[in-house]
């Protein structure tokens, strides 16, 4: 087995036993990136020197007998909307194409303190607005299971990196499914933590009340390790939860005996690929056979979530993106005078989808429309949260499809924003409710593509989510977890 084929937990053990060095591990992923990234285009920026420097430091510490975090020396890829001091952070937008933040996001500081080599910054839909990475200002990332297909988005680059073995772990951000949807398309574990569980400080805002940073990983164990490394109260983020962080890796094997699991009734309709529904049902049956108490749960407002989301998120975005004017940082357009500079900078700096959302949001917040749109959407949001609260009185976990279909083809939906928005339909309600939610592989579609299932828990229920996901990891029995990539000469297929 090649080094880059290992999970983070296995790498951690190999490193701890000094069977491999962090430099070797890091180099093997860098090699893999060299082979595959020209084809798959997961990364916007690569940081090999920085990664190797970190790896060397970790190796030296290990030689010196320093106590190290289990993830010390395990490399990571980070979505390009998370600030890295001195390292270009673009949000896959032309407007930030030359932006080097002067500070690290809190999660980046945490990873640096642990000694996780940063392989690079991953591609995404511009400002995290999209579900395919097709909205990246730079290029579209490709799904390792079928390079003609999208990897999902907006954290598509992070998903590609992990799925293709170019990074054992990655960070994404999930505003309305941007971690879970690409995880589903790429056959990974993708976790959206409880809102506030992970600091947003240094995460470049799309929709502040929804944005959460979350891990993308091969296994629940890996995701648990990474979540433990980034979760916790941060005094720099007023919305972060002042709760202690449990040891997510402990009691992962607790099993699902007696756990009450509800299958969302509303998701199962004709818009969903029947194979996806069948796969979810199969998983539910499996859980039941192993002692879970299952039933159907009704979340009657599911249909309204998408509408509410596409008012709230653009409204916040329209405000968050007002600062990009070419004056202090970022892209600055040629112009004859100040006003022209502002409008040209934005006209040239933002892509179509970002502009669309700025306009939708500006409209929704305007005097005379606020009550009908933004306020109404916020009321729906409250009702959706209450729906979940009620559902969680009867169930410990709620289960449904992670995406209605497997990955779609590049270009298939890029001209139809509404169809694109619908690909997040399974993920949006959890985000609105602020609850934790995990996407786990649910087997392969007849097309050979991975399908995903989503499990949600009450606030701060990450431990239970991870235990359920870990249980399912153990039940795979021969289902291929990784795409079969043929690497030819020069790294192209």
């Amino acid at each position, binding site marked *: 087995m090649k080094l880059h084929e290992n999970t983070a937990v296995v790498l951690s053990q190999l490193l701890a036993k000094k069977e491999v060095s962090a430099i070797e591990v890091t180099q093997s992923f860098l090699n893999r990136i060299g082979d595959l990234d020209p084809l798959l285009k997961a990364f916007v920026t690569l940081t090999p020197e920085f990664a190797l420097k970190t790896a060397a430091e970790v190796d030296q510490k290990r030689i010196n007998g320093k106590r190290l975090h289990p993830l010390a020396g395990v490399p990571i890829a980070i979505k390009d909307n998370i600030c890295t001091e001195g390292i270009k952070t673009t949000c896959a937008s032309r407007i930030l194409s030359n932006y080097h*933040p002067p500070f690290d996001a809190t999660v980046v500081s945490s990873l640096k303190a642990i000694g996780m080599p940063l392989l690079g910054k991953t591609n995404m839909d511009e400002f995290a607005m999209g579900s395919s990475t097709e909205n990246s200002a730079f290029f579209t990332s490709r799904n390792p299971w079928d390079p003609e297909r999208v990897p999902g988005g907006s954290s598509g680059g992070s998903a590609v990196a992990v799925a293709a073995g170019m990074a054992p772990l990655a960070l994404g951000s999930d505003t309305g499914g941007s971690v879970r949807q690409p995880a589903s398309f790429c056959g990974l574990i993708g976790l959206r933590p409880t809102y506030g569980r992970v600091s947003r400080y240094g995460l470049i805002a799309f929709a502040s009340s929804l944005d959460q940073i979350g891990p993308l990983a091969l296994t629940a164990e890996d995701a648990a390790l990474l979540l433990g490394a980034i979760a916790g109260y941060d005094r720099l983020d007023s919305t972060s939860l002042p709760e202690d962080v449990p040891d997510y890796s402990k009691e992962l094997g607790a099993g699902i005996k007696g756990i009450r699991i509800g299958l969302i009734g509303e998701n199962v309709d004709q818009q969903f690929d029947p194979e996806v529904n069948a796969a979810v049902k199969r998983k539910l049956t499996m859980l039941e056979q192993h002692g879970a108490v299952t039933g159907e749960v009704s979340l009657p407002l599911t249909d309204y979530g998408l509408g509410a989301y596409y008012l709230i998120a653009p409204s916040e975005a329209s405000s968050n993106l007002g600062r990009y004017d070419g004056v202090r940082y970022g892209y600055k357009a040629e112009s004859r005078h100040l006003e022209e500079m502002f409008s040209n900078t934005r006209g040239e700096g933002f892509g179509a989808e970002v502009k669309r959302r700025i306009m939708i949001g500006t409209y929704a917040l305007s005097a005379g429309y606020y009550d009908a749109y933004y306020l109404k959407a916020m009321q729906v949001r409250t009702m959706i949260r209450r729906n979940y609260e009620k559902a969680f009185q009867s169930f410990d976990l709620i289960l449904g499809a992670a995406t209605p279909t497997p990955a779609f083809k590049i270009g298939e939906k890029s001209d139809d924003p509404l169809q694109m928005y619908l690909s997040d339909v399974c993920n949006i309600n959890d985000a609105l409710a602020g609850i934790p939610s995990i996407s786990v592989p649910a087997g392969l579609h007849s097309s050979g593509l991975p399908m995903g299932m989503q499990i949600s828990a009450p606030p701060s229920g990450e431990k239970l989510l991870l235990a359920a996901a870990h249980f399912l990891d153990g039940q795979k029995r021969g289902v291929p977890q990784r795409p079969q990539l043929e690497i030819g000469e020069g790294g192209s297929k």
Partner: protein
Amino acid sequence: MDRYETVIGLEIHVELQTASKLFCGCSATFGGEPNSNCCPVCLGLPGSLPVFNRRAIELAATAALALNSEIQGKSRFDRKNYFYPDLPKAYQVSQYDQPLAKGGFLDFRIKNEIRRVNLERVHLEEEAGKLLHAGESILDAEYSLVDYNRAGIPLLEIVTRPDLRSGSEARFFLESLRLLLLYIGVSDCKMEEGSLRCDANISLRPTGSQELGIKTEVKNMNSFKAVEAALEFEAVRQEKILNSGGKVGQETCHWNEETRETIPLRGKEGSSDYRYFPEPDLLPLLLEKSLIRELAASLPELPLQRFQRLQDNYGLAESEAQIFIDNRDLGDFFESAAKTYNNYRNLANWVQGDFLFQVRERGYRLEKTLPDHLVEILVQLDNGEISRPVAKNLLAESLKTGRSPLELIATNNLGRITGRDQLLPLVEQVIAENPGAVDNFRRGKEKAVAFLVGKVMALSSGRADPGELNRLFRDIITK
């Protein structure tokens, strides 16, 4: 009777005196190299997030309490979205429909009357940066510079109801508000440095009418005098429009300090839509009752309370009390001295007279002066131990050297010279040196005595008693 009544409401912004800014740890002090007190948060860099400064909230709540405004247990911050280069995030974190405090009032004295201005609300927001144009405005300047040192400084906004009736009333109100805020120590309230700013809404209506007329907003008034002048000017401007049968346009006017007129800004503003919505980066602000009680209990005496107490406790006249209100530290000095000296009116006369004159003339720092020293002088004077001229000299000497007047009296032998035995040598000397004046007196010129008395006073450095000298001269010369 005037045909129109002027109706004015004010919107006042006050920079709170905190060590750090509202949402980050940057220093909030005035001045400094441009853009030296900045960080990712107050520069609005992508990814940065705001965190409350508890001190700013406490100061704001203190001000609300002093203004009788009802502090809300739960208030909320909102984003006020507008695009301007001094606003690094393109929105200002402010409070919209759930302000820190609602209602309230400020009573103030104007022309020996107490007037009440009701308040709409008191809320907290962040300050914007400062622009410097190399030209008239941002649009025609060759270039503009921006300093973000000010960005993020906590700003208190106080909105009054339209309760003011003239420019001079507005000025009196503002000065009283400033004094109140100085008393409670929330701001240094310097209009010239911009830590106290005021915009006004002004309209006219037919006298006796209850409806509000069409208002204009007057901006750019950078001193108390400017507030008065601008509003008086604007009232006249509107009156002329109304008298000629015209309609006042709902617009923003700029006060031009040089031409001394208000100039309407056409088109530019007025229709702004700030697209307020709750600031998702901050939790609602919850203020516990216990904290509010604590802040209320630690409120100092407010100017109007003190004004009343100075009259009640010390029998001061309104004008005397007013001077002590307006000059808080002088009032403190007075009250400190009054602890050991109970001829309060005399004390007040001295404090507001000779003492204040000396302090201002010589530029002494009031906090370094000792009330006890003045009391020592007054007691000696009252007891007849020193003369009034000596008392004044002593005061000057004691202020200059910081030495106790009692000590100065002893070492410089400044006690009064009284009694025939002590005075006679001086009187005889003056008679011998001024035969002309003596002759004049003998020939019936009364004024000559005053001259002779003056000579002895000079000779004795004011330690002799003029009355006693007068009698003595008459006695000796006419004998």
